[in-house]
């Protein structure tokens, strides 16, 4: 599971960075989405990976998984969702006003 998780994070980040460097608005937005996924997985993994363990305290279990990273991921997802909306709108506006989807200023 560790290998799968780290490979997923690595591949998502690498693809995201590649897309970001294309410097066209649509690939840049997709790149952000991928990087965000990678970051979310990473936060999740920092609570240590575990299978079949609840994140809440119950009388009949004594093995728990750390609940805090899951709460952090939730916040991170909400914020990155809002951010994606903002950059989509701005990219569209920029395309409409300048007739090009290049991100660079010249």
């Amino acid at each position, binding site marked *: 599971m560790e290998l799968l998780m780290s490979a997923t994070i690595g591949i998502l980040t690498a693809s995201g960075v590649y897309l*970001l460097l294309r410097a066209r608005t649509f690939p840049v937005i997709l790149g952000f989405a991928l990087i965000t996924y990678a*970051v979310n997985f990473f*936060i999740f993994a920092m*609570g240590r990976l575990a299978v079949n363990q609840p994140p809440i305290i119950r009388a009949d279990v004594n093995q728990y998984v750390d609940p805090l990273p899951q709460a952090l991921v939730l916040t991170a997802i909400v914020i990155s969702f809002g951010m994606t909306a903002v950059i989509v709108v701005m990219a569209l506006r920029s395309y409409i006003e300048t007739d090009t989807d290049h991100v660079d200023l010249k």
Partner: protein
Amino acid sequence: MNYWLIFPILIPCLTAVLIILGMYRDHLVARTFSMIGVVLNFIVSVSLLQMALHGDILTYNLGDWLPPFGITFVLDRLSALMLVLTSVLAFFILLYSLGGLDRQGRHFHSLIQFQIMGLNGAFLTGDLFNLFVFFEVLLIASYALMVHGGGATRIKAGVQYVAVNLVGSALFLIAAALIYGVAGTLNMADLAVKVAALPASEQALLHTGALLLLVVFAIKAALVPFQFWLPGTYGNTAAPVAALFAILTKVGAYSIIRVYTLIFGESTAWIAAPWLLPAGLVTLVVGTLGILAAKNLGQLISFAVIGSMGTLMIPISLFTTHALAAALYYLLHSTVAAAALFLLVDLIRQRRKDHSDNLTAGASFAQRGLIASLFFLGAIAMTGMPPLSGFIGKLMILNSSREENTFLIWGIILSMSLLSIIGFAKGGSTLFWKTTPANEKAQPVSTSVIPFISVTGLLLFSLMLVLFAEPILVYATHTAQQLLSPTEYIQSVFSLNKEAP
């Protein structure tokens, strides 16, 4: 528990929501409420400064969840100082915007309030993840403010600004997750305790997290090699918005001071210091060369801001009482000086229709003498000439760096000051002196005195920094002492807990 701590966040938040809900159609009401919000924020900030004046560290736990589990707000001398600086700057910029900028888009007033809320929150929070959240609050407001007024170039520059900051946010999350993964907490005071007690086997990951966090703050503070976004953003946005953004780079500086004295200070052998000094020196050089090469005044001031961030980072990297005190004084000075200059850029842009703020010789314009005099004062402050506050700030920075690398630091700061004087003199003389007689048919400009009150107010603040240099320096020195002995901070945060962690 001190309930006053939540007010600097609540007041702008409620004002913004009220304005969105029903007032944005009526400019007069929106302006009135926005102004009331900013003035209330100023009053609360000053009274918080009063409370922090004698060295008490106050805390507020949201929902009464005790640290390290709840969200904690902490007020110490540094936070109080930053709150007052924010509220003063916000007041003058809001005042300036009443000259017409706020009518260029519907939600200017609520956005500026959300911006203040994010700034105040970032200065008050005692939790690393919450710092991220408030960074996002102030960034989202700044994205919208950045494109306020519209225009093709501005929106394009806005996309770049959003893109750079999204990368920054992703890095912040990775860094915070790494630190959490090692230390198991994100409360700053708790982190300070846990980090000091970590075994050697965990140090590698911890250091990675700490330095990744430094990259994030360096992006915010526009330090080389992450300075490239700043001229495009500040130069292309509406100049008064750029004036407000003068405090955004200081959020980066504040975070560096806070995190690398409290959490990654003595216990990790001042991990940021070896990176900050070269970054500061190179940033200063890059900023100054930019001043010489700038093609328009907006760009020139943007590069001056980069240069001032470099100057600011040099004393921070020394992590001594004197150097930190000098840094805090310079931080106050450079924020207001940059803001005043950006407001002047806007006045010049309004008056030179065909040349805008390009550094090219053009026709004379209305109130040229007055604007030139104000620019002269602003440039004196920014480049660090006597008698304004830049001089005292730089003098203190030079004085505090007499122990190590003296020749390097003094040489670069002094030679770059000379170059920036040349840059400002060149820009100013082209704009104000190489003018042809005014065009008879020149478009009439607004003769409102409000913009001039605002600029003069900011410059007077710079003068106040000189007149009251001693009490301010005493306060800054006490602040630096408080920062360098984090035990007090940690004890205050956990003062309500029955047993120490």
